[in-house]
């Protein structure tokens, strides 16, 4: 089957063509069959390839499937060829698998949308490009997928273009991603310039001939990383992702949580052979990742829109993945990428189910007490939240713990401390989300009748919940030989030059696990205290035991102090980061650049006066410059 792996993107391509060209003529049921079905076929094919790959002799790995010669010239060659190796297989499984589930979910979620076929055609096109991105065997083909997913993301964010905010968000995503693409493209040109080829295998093989820390590799890796920051929403190019939540929720789940935004992480991991030769870039990656993880988490603390919380959480989790890459733990990054795909897709789809049930309401302040109205959604969301918070034995525990551990052992104790703090905040805001949405009093309007979603939506949720629960077990860290994930991925990933081979004792590892669980526990506890206990406690106690009122009032007073000294500053800081840093500085920079260009445009167009003699003068000035250049020397 591997020899026909090119069929994997072809299935959704056919789906795209059918839905895109005939969408108006075929029935909704056919669209529902073709859209998810084509991705399902891809997934099945990927599973087959995966099975076959596991049984291939070591000599035959990795497999490069040649499709056709895309560009051939004396000096420049690029093939349309697909690379099947552990890394791309993991990505393929995630993309097609999660993609398939989200397609099914969309059948329910988008059921009443007038542009049903258009939606599925975009979604299928996205899957095509994402598959090309992860399967490409060279940078240029990867770039094709990279641009393609960006385009689809743009189309899908602006899907409900009637909303001004949606089309603005689409535009913003596009503009910001351009900057990233610029870095990526420049990186590709520099790679071609340096290595004379863009093929992964050839480039990585040659990379060893350069000295560690050579300037050109540093520049190349930094350029590529600029690309990654754009696509994967890292500082300073992350602002588009929260806005991207204007798209339909399944799109947020698929593109802006599970797959496309992880493309940057995938790319860095794919280029690990280059990154390990450029320590400066590694540091940059780690620091940016860490800073993003922390900053996004702190912004997440004060958001009230359920999807924005998840969006900042995604930015933050992507930051963790880059942190892992930056300290050389590429496998941990991919591991977290995979588990994150499960639980974040779950959370987004769950939030979509909530929004669906609440007739489009996204503000958590207008929710509450949905636990009984939407039991399945509640259960799966809780699983997802436990997973993202890093509670044993859910998937996020293994992957996040591994990142924190590697940050400590291979990185710096400061990395670990900040990352742990971020993890605590993550646990806090995620549980805040759960508590505000499903617990407490009902705060929704009387005309809203929350209801559980249909099975076509809940079944994918349940599957994802199962994956979020057991998905971490493929990478059990402690026992030798049980970390299947590591061993599987090893051939695709380069290692930082020796020096880190120190073996840590099992006690140390277990201790670190307990610490990270403890940190998450603190976060959950604070959330519990602030959003479950605190609002009800005063009222209840006053009613029952009037004599104790003062005491309770005093306790409340303590809480007030605590609020004033700890909670409020954090909250304010969070709001500050969100409103000032986020919207003013970074958006300001983007908008500022745009407006400078716009203003420049208005100035330059004035040169075009419409007077023919001005144009003649322009020609004459050109003549003068040229003759002056030649004769004036």
């Amino acid at each position, binding site marked *: 089957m591997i020899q026909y792996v090119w069929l994997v993107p072809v299935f959704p391509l056919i789906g795209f063509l059918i839905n895109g060209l005939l969408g108006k003529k075929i029935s909704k049921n056919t669209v529902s069959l073709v859209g998810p079905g084509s991705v399902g076929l891809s997934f099945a094919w990927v599973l087959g390839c995966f099975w076959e790959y596991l049984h291939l002799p070591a000599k035959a790995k990795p497999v490069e499937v040649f499709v056709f010669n895309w560009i051939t010239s004396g000096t420049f060659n690029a093939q*349309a060829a697909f690379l099947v190796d552990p890394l791309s297989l993991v990505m393929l499984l995630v993309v097609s698998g999660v993609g398939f589930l989200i397609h099914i979910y969309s059948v329910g979620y988008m059921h009443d949308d007038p542009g049903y076929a258009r939606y599925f055609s975009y979604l299928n096109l996205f899957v095509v490009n994402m598959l090309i991105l992860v399967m490409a065997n060279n940078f240029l083909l990867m770039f094709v997928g990279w641009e393609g997913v960006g385009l689809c993301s743009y189309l899908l964010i602006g899907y409900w273009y009637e909303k001004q905010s949606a089309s603005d968000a689409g*535009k913003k995503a596009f503009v910001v991603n351009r900057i990233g693409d610029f870095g990526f493209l420049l990186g590709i040109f520099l790679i071609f310039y340096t290595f004379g080829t863009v093929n992964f295998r050839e480039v990585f093989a040659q990379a060893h001939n350069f000295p560690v820390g050579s300037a050109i590799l540093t520049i190349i890796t930094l350029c590529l990383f600029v690309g990654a920051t754009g696509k994967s929403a890292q500082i300073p190019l992350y602002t588009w992702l929260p806005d991207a939540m204007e798209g339909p929720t399944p799109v947020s789940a698929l593109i802006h949580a599970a797959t496309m935004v992880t493309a940057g992480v995938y790319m860095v991991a794919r280029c690990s052979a280059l990154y390990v030769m450029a320590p400066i870039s590694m540091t940059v990656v780690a620091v940016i990742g860490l800073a993003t993880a922390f900053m996004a988490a702190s912004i997440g603390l004060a958001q009230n829109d359920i999807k924005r919380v998840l969006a900042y959480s995604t930015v933050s989790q992507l930051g963790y993945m880059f942190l892992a890459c930056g300290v050389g733990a590429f496998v941990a990054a991919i591991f977290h990428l995979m588990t994150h795909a499960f639980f974040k897709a779950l959370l987004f789809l769950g939030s979509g189910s909530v929004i669906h049930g609440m007739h489009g309401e996204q503000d958590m302040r207008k929710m509450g007490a949905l636990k009984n109205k939407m039991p399945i959604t509640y259960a799966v969301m809780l699983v997802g939240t436990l997973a993202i918070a890093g509670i044993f034995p859910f998937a996020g525990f293994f992957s996040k713990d591994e990142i924190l551990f590697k940050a400590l052992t291979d990185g710096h104790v400061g990395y670990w401390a900040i990352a742990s703090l971020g993890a605590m905040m993550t646990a806090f805001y995620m549980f805040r989300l759960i508590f505000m949405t499903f617990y407490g009093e009902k705060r929704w309007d009387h005309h809203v009748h929350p209801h559980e979603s249909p099975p076509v939506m809940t079944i994918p949720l349940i599957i994802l919940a199962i994956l979020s629960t057991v998905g971490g077990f493929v990478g059990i860290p402690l026992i030798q030989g049980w970390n299947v994930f590591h061993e599987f991925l090893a051939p695709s990933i380069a290692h930082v030059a020796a020096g880190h081979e120190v073996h840590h004792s099992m006690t140390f590892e277990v201790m670190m696990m307990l610490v990270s669980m403890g940190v998450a526990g603190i976060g959950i506890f604070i959330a519990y205290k602030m959003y479950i206990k605190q609002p009800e406690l005063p009222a209840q106690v006053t009613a029952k035991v009037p004599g104790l009122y003062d005491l309770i009032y005093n306790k409340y007073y303590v809480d007030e102090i605590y609020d004033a000294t700890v909670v409020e500053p954090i909250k304010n800081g969070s709001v500050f980061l969100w409103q000032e840093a986020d919207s003013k500085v970074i958006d300001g920079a983007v908008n500022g650049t745009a407006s400078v260009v716009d203003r420049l445009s208005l100035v330059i167009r004035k040169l075009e006066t419409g007077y023919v003699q001005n144009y003649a003068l322009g020609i004459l000035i050109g003549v003068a410059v040229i003759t002056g250049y030649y*004769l004036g020397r």
Partner: protein
Amino acid sequence: MSIDIPTICLTNIGPLITLSVAGLLLLLFDAFSGKAMKKAHFHQFSLVAVVIALLQTVWLWNRQTTDFSRMIYVDNFSFFFNVIFLLGTGISIILSVHYLENYRKNYGEYYALMLFAAVGMILMAAGGNLVIIFLGVEILSIPIYILSGLFREDLKSNEAALKYLLLGAFSSAFLLFGIAMLYGGTGTFYLADLAAFIKKSGMNGFTYVGMGLLIVGFGFKVSMAPFHMWTPDVYEGAPTSITAFMSVGTKAAAFAAFLRVFLEVFPTVRMEWDLLLWVAAVATMTVGNVTALAQTNIKRMLAYSSIAHAGYILVGLIAGNQLGATGILYYLLAYTIMNLGAFGVVIAVARKKDNYLNIYDYAGLGFQYPGLAAVMSVFLFSLVGMPPTAGFLGKFYLFSAAVEAGYIWLVIIAVINSLISVYYYLRITVIMYMQPAEADLGPVAMTPVVNATLIISALAVLLIGIFPGSIFQLAMNSVKIFGS
């Protein structure tokens, strides 16, 4: 007195003869047919001529010689360009028919002039002598001056034509001055002899001035800054079908001559012109893209876009290597198809008589005419340089050629520029798909033939983007004549 008439092989200039004769016959038919010969047949006749010329070009492929006492080159370079010109002429003719009928301007002369302009283009690409190149420029330009002014009741059309004519003649004078200087310095008009002279004795004052003024002359025709200023006005004012024709034809022909002259005559003194062209290319791209941002008239926007594209193509010329020259050929072919396609949609959307040329008239097109919007999107993506379209690969070839030649900064600027360009091209797509139509503008002007042409063009843009191999081989084969 005895005259030694040089041996001449007429098949070498087969396409030239076909087009000229067809043009003459068209004029005769138009004059003598009266009502007997319906106007509808003029374009069919000229299309047949174009196809025959195309077949002749294909038949001549791989012939490598000179003819008419070295006046013209008969080589794959000129054949490749012939294909571009003929394709451009053919598609323009198809796009013209309906458009002209709305204006009651479906003259036989129109098609004859187009064919004569194509003759000029072919001369420019094949010229082995500066005299031929100069004549080619004029035979190309004069019909276009006339056709720009075709709508003589329309002041915009008048203005466009007069501006183009005045500035064209002005720049021709400089081009001619340059040719005279080169002649003064070397005593010859033959490119081969000029190359030999410069290789042997280097540059002198005359050849410097001559080379500089050739840059002016060709720069004017390709709309290189600061000689680009006519472009927006002329593109806006001329009949749209002519704008389409000149946007691809004039540019391709001028680049053919530019490429041939600079890579054949001046490759040994590259250091003398690469900096100038570097600056010009950067200015061209930047002015084109930045000004296009502020445009709301789609013809004017495409005019600025065509300036920007001239800048990208100059990048390949500056690179000056095989890959760069190949890239230019490939890019010009791709550009011909995608730009004509875009103009085809513009003509259709403008409905009768150029009524709707504002970019906001495209609102809702994605729903009313999904097919038209889809092909427009393909053309726009290709102009942007989105993979997997031909425009992407073309740009990629050009830029990698420059990287290979060591012009990293130029490539950085070019990439930034193509990022800027995304904004204004994509704005059209956004308007088509993401804004509802404000009013019903009436049916778009489409005929089955135009439909088919646009669809085939869109498919071609995708096809040569995904499978560029054979086109690229042909292009590479065509630029083998330039050593290095």
